């Protein structure tokens, strides 16, 4: 009953449009993280994943009429910027020490 009343009040776009787009983008990013050998490409795939998360946060924020979704999307963007800065610094050190950014070469901790 409550759900029916809510459906008549909300007659905009489907919520699932945004959630499914986010899910597809997330899974493309997961594929990139698992399948790529170049460390910079893995960082790019992580950015895809973070964008998918942001779409979900904003969609649920719009659904519940709460600004918290947008606030946390901004925090995710800030954390992504920090992550890329430190991540690229680490990649540069790996390149300086090994003259390669191939993640298969970074196996010093393999038993």
């Amino acid at each position, binding site marked *: 009953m409550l759900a029916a009343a809510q459906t008549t009040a909300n007659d905009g776009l*489907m919520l699932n449009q*945004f959630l499914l*787009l986010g899910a597809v983008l997330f899974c493309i990013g997961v594929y990139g993280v698992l399948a790529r050998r170049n460390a910079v*490409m893995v960082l790019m795939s992580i950015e895809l994943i973070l964008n998918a998360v942001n779409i979900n946060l*904003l969609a649920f924020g*719009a*659904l519940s*009429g709460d*600004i918290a979704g947008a606030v946390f999307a901004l925090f995710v963007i800030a954390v992504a*910027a920090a992550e890329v800065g430190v991540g690229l610094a680490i990649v540069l050190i790996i390149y300086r020490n090994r003259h390669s950014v191939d993640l298969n070469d970074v196996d010093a901790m393999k038993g």
Partner: protein
Amino acid sequence: MTATLLATDTPIAQSIFFYLLAAVIVAAAVAVVTTKNVVRAALYLISVFAGVVGVYLLLAAEFVAVTQILVYIGAIMVLMLFGIMLTRARIGRDSELTNDNWWVGLATAVLLVVVMGYALVDAFGDDRLPRDTQIISVEGSNTKTLSDAIFSQYLIPFEVVSVLLTAALVGAIVLARKDRG
């Protein structure tokens, strides 16, 4: 519960805009993870970010959209291109960008999208967003509501994020400088 992605009273212009953006985003994202050229992957990634900006605008989050342009397209992509150039990746085609066992990643991703898609359709089926998403602001724009929220209710998380950014900046400089002993 079956989900209909286009109901009769759905906003037509917004739907067309959304599906155009979604097609661009998914196509460019697939190109990012499959192309054999590192620089081209970075440029496809810019298309993904630009498409996501449009999706944010559809959700009436104009401040987040502008921040995405400034931070992602402006700053992060320049960092990425610097990373590509500094690690001297070959500019042309590079056949060694993908693992030999890439199909494990593909299987994981397909399984994940099937499970997540089923769960989402099952849980949210026909739920709709409010037609006027601007309704979340009591007065003025969403940006005003957002700034009020950040600088009152979410002040401490905001300060924590600024400390994190400072720490990441110092950490990146310490890691990347050449004369560290």
